[in-house]
């Protein structure tokens, strides 16, 4: 996957006319998305204006709705940031879903099995989750760095392996017979759950995700590390000639992106789920690939993209509930929106 279209655009001189055109193209894209989406609502027997009104009220209409938006955006944001960093260095980690589950397993086990004061346990769980995700991803990194094994295939295959492992642990050793009808671990003690933010009804893990944005931005744009990553992305041979240990850098990039995916997994466990089970992820590891690329592999871009996808997800649920629309058609509408944003982004870039 050597997608060169992944945002390696050198900043040019911006002109006012180009900026205006960019805005125009973007607006046209959004209008078209609403039109085609509205058509799908009509096909499904709904009323487009009411449907889209639900989308906004369900995401921005109250503190409660904003909380849901942020909780959904948090894992996408964390994973997306890591992937953006890795993709910058042309390390194509497609295994974030598996890394999320392995991280959740490591962190969740710590929270469940180690006794101690709550805040300490949460902190340890997060460290364990980062370590778990990072280690799992490093295998892919080492395979590529040492043996040149294509990381797309190895990380994709390791998703399945990681999730089967997760399934085993929550089925047998940590399984809860009283968990109802699901493969689920025992419930975490209350004190290991992240506190909730008043009015938003959202866990404080969203601050961890939001806080990662400037950190990743700084690492990518300002530090020598970020410079090496971008250099490797543009020209790996030259980077090596310049004395950078690219093998090590590949492993590091896998570990960092895997660690952030693992952290996202732990936050789902201690913030949303309260135990380890399959409900912690709505394919966040895959959706985050879209988030990273749509955000043009920049930290603020990933933030915007994560919010956009979360807006479509949460707003789509409200649209479905309020208007009696099957959630399937909402998925299709989400797809239409992302495609039009993508097309608008593409033309806006060409317009500059």
């Amino acid at each position, binding site marked *: 996957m050597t997608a060169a279209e992944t945002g390696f655009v050198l900043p040019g001189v911006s002109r006012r006319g180009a900026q205006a055109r960019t805005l125009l193209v973007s607006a046209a894209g959004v209008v078209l998305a609403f039109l085609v989406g509205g058509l799908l609502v009509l096909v499904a027997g709904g009323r487009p204006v009411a449907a889209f009104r639900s989308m906004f009220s369900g995401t921005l209409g109250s503190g409660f709705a904003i909380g*849901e938006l942020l909780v959904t955006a948090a894992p996408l944001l964390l994973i997306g940031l890591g992937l953006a960093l890795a993709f910058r260095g042309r390390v194509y980690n497609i295994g974030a879903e598996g890394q999320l589950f392995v991280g959740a397993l490591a962190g969740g086990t710590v929270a469940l099995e180690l006794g101690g004061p709550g805040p300490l346990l949460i902190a340890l769980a997060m460290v364990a989750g980062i370590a778990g995700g990072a280690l799992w991803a490093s295998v892919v990194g080492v395979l590529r760095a040492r043996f040149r094994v294509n990381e797309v295939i190895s990380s994709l295959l390791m998703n399945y392996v990681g999730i089967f492992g997760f399934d085993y642990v929550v089925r047998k050793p940590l*399984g809860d017979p009283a968990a109802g009808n699901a493969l689920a671990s025992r419930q975490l003690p209350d004190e290991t759950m992240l506190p909730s933010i008043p009015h938003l009804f959202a866990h404080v893990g969203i601050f961890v995700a939001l806080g990662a944005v400037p950190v990743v931005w700084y690492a990518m744009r300002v530090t020598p590390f970020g410079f090496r990553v971008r250099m490797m992305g543009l020209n790996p041979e030259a980077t090596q000639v310049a004395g950078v240990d690219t093998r090590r850098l590949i492993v590091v990039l896998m570990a960092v992106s895997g660690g952030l995916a693992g952290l996202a997994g732990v936050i789902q466990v201690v913030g949303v789920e309260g135990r380890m089970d399959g409900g912690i992820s709505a394919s966040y590891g895959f959706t985050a690939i879209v988030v990273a690329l*749509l955000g043009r592999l920049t930290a603020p871009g990933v933030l915007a993209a994560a919010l956009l996808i979360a807006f479509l997800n949460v707003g789509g649920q409200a649209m479905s509930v309020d208007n009696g629309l099957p959630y399937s058609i909402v998925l299709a509408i989400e797809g239409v929106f992302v495609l039009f944003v993508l097309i608008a982004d593409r033309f806006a870039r060409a317009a500059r």
Partner: protein
Amino acid sequence: MRRLRVPALLSAAAALVVAGAALAGSQGSGSAQAKVKVALVLPCPTNDGSWCQQAFVAAKQLQKEGLIDLSYTSNAPQDTAGASQVIERYAANGAQLVIADSAWQDAAFAAAKKFPKVPIVYAGGGKVGGNVSTFEEPIYQPAYLAGILAAGITKTKVVGALAAFDIPLCHAQAVAFIKGAQSVDAGIKGVTSYVGDWNDVAKGKNAALALASQKADVFTVCGGGPASGLISALKEKNLSGFGYVGNQNGLAPKQMVGSLVYNLYPIFKAIVQDVANGKYKGKDYDLGLQSFKLMLNPKYSVARIPQKSLAKEKQVASSILAGSFKVPYVIK
């Protein structure tokens, strides 16, 4: 000077907000009625021939009888955050009862934290409390009866249990099926296999063939995809099996001994009446064999089922209903 740029996406976001402001307004509110406003949340399509279809049909029946005002979401997101958001949205919209038809225990309790006064019911058994209830899906009970019949049908003395995942429901069903067969003939062996996917029909079919290679010739199955796969395998190898949740007898008339059919109508009715009468509180609705029946297939050559087996099945079924016999419930 390097400058960050995400103008397209940011301006798209800006356009979205502008559009939102233009659309913003009050939400439609429903009129108050004597009927209970029920919201049904389904993780699958209303015509999956399985769990969701049975729930949908039962709710539609209540609607037809004028007992409820029904709104529903099919193909709902299955992760906890998504499912709880859907439940919460219904609660916020004034639903008087939300039936979340999946093993959404965590989602139900998460939603109940924000809407403690709204009755929320999830499927499959588990923890109850406050206004959160659950209803049982006791497929293991008719599976035991199916096992009794299987013992009379099997020629190889091996019966097979096929499942998507080793969740408690599937586990208990498999164990009860095998124990039912062994209650007739202790020499019968049970073999099991797990597909690892709820939707994968082709893999389910081949898992059934794998069990057949271990000589199994009568089957029970757990999971929609594997159930469809089993039907295909039964027809291909002319083996016998039992349908899953919906009445699948017609899909393989010559090979289906019967189906383990789930009827949610009495369960939903009991819950709705509790809500209507103001008697609702969090509890475990369990109608046992009254809700999950073994429905025999008249087209399956009955001559292949020994009279003795049919008689024993009838007798055990009545003692289960009378409460004098409890089907073993093994989930681990």
